[in-house]
């Protein structure tokens, strides 16, 4: 077995895989965050909380109703998306007219409410969620062992991200979205129901977070602390990538996941702040973000 910088290749690849998985989750989450920011000009602090809700939806559906993994993958995002629609309709819609920082504060409040509520009801400990039988085990690739579920997570996340990207860049609906980001008043003057589109967009993006949560359930334990632990890193990802392009957000997220994995391999103590260090570097060199349309 060869070593790279004193680390056996198996270990390195294992960490890279983990990094890729984290990157996939970052991608799903930063995608939603970037779209919400682009369209609604809102930084959705509650994104982490919706991710947590997705995980809890999966766990609850299984433990209370016996609903299995595959149905949950569809049900969880729908449920979370529905809640998102309510949040947008009841609260965010009324804040579009005032300073956008109020929306940030509102979503922060919602995040606290959700986290607090779930911690109060379910406790802080993590709930286990079993890997679905069809995805247990793994493949021996020779140079490493690839667990099935982890491979599935990467494939599913990327598929959803690419599908979303296609929908936005290549479809008529996506054109409406892109145009409404630029000039919502005019798009409305063309007869398109922009308020509804905003609600639907927020619901969809939040649903993406819920999907990520359901996907994460078998990997990490489902707990109220799921949200905050991931959302701040995702914010840093978005700052690094810039808000210019959706493709950029996905690429940045994956890259950062991998960088995090590499850091864990060679310099474990710094792994939790790796993304932030990259963020500092990017701010110094290219403040508006790597893929931003400004600068």
């Amino acid at each position, binding site marked *: 077995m060869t070593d790279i910088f004193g680390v056996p290749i198996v270990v390195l690849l294992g960490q890279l895989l983990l990094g890729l998985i984290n990157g996939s989750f970052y991608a799903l989450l930063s995608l939603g965050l970037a779209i919400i920011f682009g369209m609604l000009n809102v930084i959705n602090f509650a994104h982490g909380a919706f991710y947590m809700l997705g995980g809890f939806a999966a766990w609850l559906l299984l433990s209370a109703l016996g609903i299995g993994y595959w149905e949950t993958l569809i049900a969880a995002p729908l449920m979370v998306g529905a809640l998102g629609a309510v949040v947008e309709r009841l609260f965010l819609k009324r804040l579009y007219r005032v300073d956008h920082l109020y929306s940030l504060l509102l979503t922060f409040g919602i995040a606290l409410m959700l986290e607090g509520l779930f911690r109060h009801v379910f406790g802080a400990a993590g709930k286990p969620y079993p890997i679905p039988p069809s995805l247990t085990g793994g493949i021996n690739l020779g140079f490493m062992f690839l667990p099935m579920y982890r491979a599935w997570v990467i494939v599913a996340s990327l598929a959803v991200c690419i599908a979303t990207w296609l929908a936005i860049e290549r479809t008529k609906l996506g054109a409406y979205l*892109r*145009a409404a*980001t*630029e000039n919502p008043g005019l798009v*409305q*003057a063309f007869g*398109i129901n922009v308020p509804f589109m905003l609600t639907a967009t927020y619901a969809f993006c939040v649903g993406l977070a819920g999907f990520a949560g359901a996907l994460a359930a078998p990997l990490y334990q489902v707990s109220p602390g799921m949200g905050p632990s991931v959302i701040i890193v995702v914010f840093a990802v978005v700052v690094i990538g810039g808000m210019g392009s959706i493709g950029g957000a996905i690429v940045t997220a994956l890259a950062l996941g991998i960088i995090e994995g590499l850091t864990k391999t060679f310099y474990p103590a710094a792994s939790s702040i790796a993304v932030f260090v990259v963020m500092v570097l990017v701010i110094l060199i290219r403040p508006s973000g790597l893929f931003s349309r400004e600068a």
Partner: protein
Amino acid sequence: MAEASLLDVKGLEAWYGESHVLHGIDFDVRKGEVVTLIGRNGAGKTTTLRSLIGVVGKRRGACSYKGADLLKVAPHKVARLGIGYVPEERGIFSSLTVLENLLFPPAWQAGGMAVEEIYGLFPNLKGRDSTSGTRLSGGEQQMLAIGRILRTGADFILLDEPTEGIAPVIIEEIGAALRILKDRGMTIILVEQNLRFAASIADRHYVLDQGKVVDEISNNALDANMDRLNRYLGV
């Protein structure tokens, strides 16, 4: 031939936040007419159009369009009544190509022009399908802005300063296109500061000053009233 008005505006008031911009606009437009709103900068011409579309903050008054109260219509439903809006800034989307821009507004009524027909009116737009919308020149963007409305089957068009900052050659083309549209029975409200252009296609002119309609001049009587007009326009 007194026809019923297609659009009847009485006492239209509008606010931008705290600012009271329109103080009671009265005018009407008959089917197939081309009517212009002329006046100085800040007289309220653009605001009037925006009030009809529903893009201002607060509005009050009586605006009946095809019998319905326009002020009660939700902003995203105005276009569905057959009203097309070409804003002053043209509003070409930079994140869309020329063709995407052209096909963008949904066709709410039958009778919209086919893309080929629009290229017939505005040959400059042909062959630019995949160019980003904002790469076009100002004049071409104006043609695109008008063209995309024509596809929707709108029969009542609100045009805000189509000739502003555009080369005379293109202005000619736009004027010719508008005349063709008028011949087809399109009803148009034109906001213009270029009197010559306005006179070349309009039937009547409403003069606006400080948020009110202060005069109405038929196109035939335009020359006779030039002095009065120049005073209104502060020339």
